[in-house]
């Protein structure tokens, strides 16, 4: 499987918790592998912050956008490509 390099952006409480605004991660193109590899940099807690191990998928309350499109709207298996930007937001709102 080919290796792709993506940029992860963290926002709001995730940014303040991990004291990181963005990081570059290499992965096999799946979100899970991206999250695992990000956790090698950020710490293991990151996995549980964004991933639901029981359900085997990204946590439902997290807002994850690949190149600005929410993965829930893409309605397909996500395959990341080189230089994709993955924005990770905790639940938030305003108005």
């Amino acid at each position, binding site marked *: 499987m080919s290796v792709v390099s993506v940029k992860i*952006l963290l*926002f*709001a*409480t995730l*940014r*303040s918790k991990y004291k990181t*605004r963005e990081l570059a991660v290499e992965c096999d193109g799946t979100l899970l592998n991206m999250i695992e590899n990000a956790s090698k940099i950020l710490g293991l807690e990151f996995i549980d912050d964004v991933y639901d191990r029981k359900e085997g998928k990204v946590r439902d*309350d997290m*807002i994850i*956008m690949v*190149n*600005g*499109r*929410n993965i*829930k*709207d893409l309605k397909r298996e996500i395959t990341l490509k080189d230089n994709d930007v993955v*924005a990770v*937001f*905790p*639940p*938030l*709102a*305003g*108005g």
Partner: protein
Amino acid sequence: MPRGYMGKILRVNLNTKSLKVEPTSEEVARKYLGGKGYAVYLLYKYLKEYEKAGISPKDMDALGSENVLIFATGPGTGVPGFPSSGRYHVMALKSPLTGSIGSANSGGEFGPFLKFSGFDAVVVEGASETPVYLAIVNGEAELRDAGSLWGKNVFDTCRILRNRVNGKNISVACIGPAGENLAYMAGIVNDEHRAAGRTGLGAVMGSKKLKAIVVSGEEKPPVAKPKEFAEVSKRCLDALKTNAVTGVGLPIYGTAILINIINTAGGLPYKNWQTGVNPDAEKISGETLAEKYLTSQRSCWGCPIGCGRVTSVKSGPFQILASEGPEYESVWALGGSTAIKDLDAVVKANHYCDELGLDSISMGSTIAAAMELNERGYIPQEDLQGLDLRFGNAAALVEAVWRTAYKVGFGKYLALGSKRLCEIYGHPELSMSVKGLEMPAYDPRAMKGMGLNYATSNRGGCHVTGYTVSPEILGIPEKIDPLKAEGKAVWVKIFQDFTCVVNSTVNCLFTTFALGMKDYAELLSAVTGWDLTEDEILKIGERIYNLERVIINKYGYDGKDDTLPKRLLEEPMPEGPAKGHITELEKMREEYYKLRGWINGVPTKEKLVELEIEL
């Protein structure tokens, strides 16, 4: 009178300086709740009377003595334990900015304290010849001379009037110089930094020479079923505290946390909506605001969320020792649409909007429109009188706010709002407004439901009439695709109707990120003693929205006005995740009218009968 209400409405006539106390009508309250709904009902009655007297609604002058201004609370307002019920709604027959109905909502303490002073609402008719203010203390109301207050800014007016009243729970709602000078985007500001900003109601107050209303009192609204209320109140307050959005996100970051996510979705209007991607969004984001400017948070009365920001700019040309905000919409209007990346300047400009009494959304958007007009060479330089209105010019932003409030130099033109400004300079298409009201911070090419909501909103380009950003971007209560037009009409209709319920309760719309219609039905039932179901409250909301529509139809607004600026209908989004998209309004609007039972933006007779609206 059912519980939850104070049972009295104060009617003030500024022509005759007379004050009249009337009972709050149970029949009206049962059909229209309170707040916005009750006010819409009263405004419609005025309009009918005017018509009978031969005054055409279309010819009514928003700044004439015939306009009527209503400050209204609802059965939830000020009830201890009713979540986030520190709000009130203001309405006017006509807005000077839009020519449509005037409508705005504000937090702080004024709403509950108006009730504690003994009244559910204050209705202001006529106009005074000299400046006055209204004092309501423990059920006693009095008009007093405001000669020495005229010319004073909002902060000074609040401070002085608070000191003049000897009582508990004092709150002041007032206008600043912008309202006195009849700037069309002047707002009403209460408790220093909370504004009923939209649709120029500050100018209506200014035209009536009503500088302020100060309220104080200790009478608490009664609750019909205290035991049931305590249970449902606890459940709702717990939900607000444990919900990730209302319990964590909003308290820590405030509303400006939206800057980055809306920008990531490609829907943060930049340079007067030329695109939806702001390359400098991070610099004006909620994260940056929290890191560099935030000193503490402030809650409105009775609110466990506390989204209000207390901020300061520590040094530099825009230094400011203590301010509040800016909110997401203000950051965007003053900083995003204008392409200003210096958050110091945005905080300062926002502070001046509060101090001078201006709606930050319309102010920022009008400045952005002027910047585009200027950069395209449409404004003769002598008109600008040295005001260097170019995108990104922070100093010009702050200066423009001042000039607008005092209507000096180019401020005279800015004070008219973007619609008239762009018409004057021959390019009406550059005003990013609907029905004359500047739209807030969401480009509908990147979230199409918002386009339908803006277009069909009775008060004009408004986000909080039906906030479909919630499902489209935030995934609350469920995620829907922002780039699809299909299925949006039903969301817009339900959100618009339910928002009428919230604005008539009156409590904060932000509760709806955690509470649903069932919670509202139970809260309202326990407070009033009525047995309200979810369907019933939604029908009340629909009734309010339709009666409001009947009013604006009388002003000549119909389907032709339920539209958007050309840019959003015809210019594809140039970049970002929504690249290539336009709003696809027509498709959604057709479905929406069907759902509403409207033809060309006008409710059918059958619809009005079904909603038991008596004309």
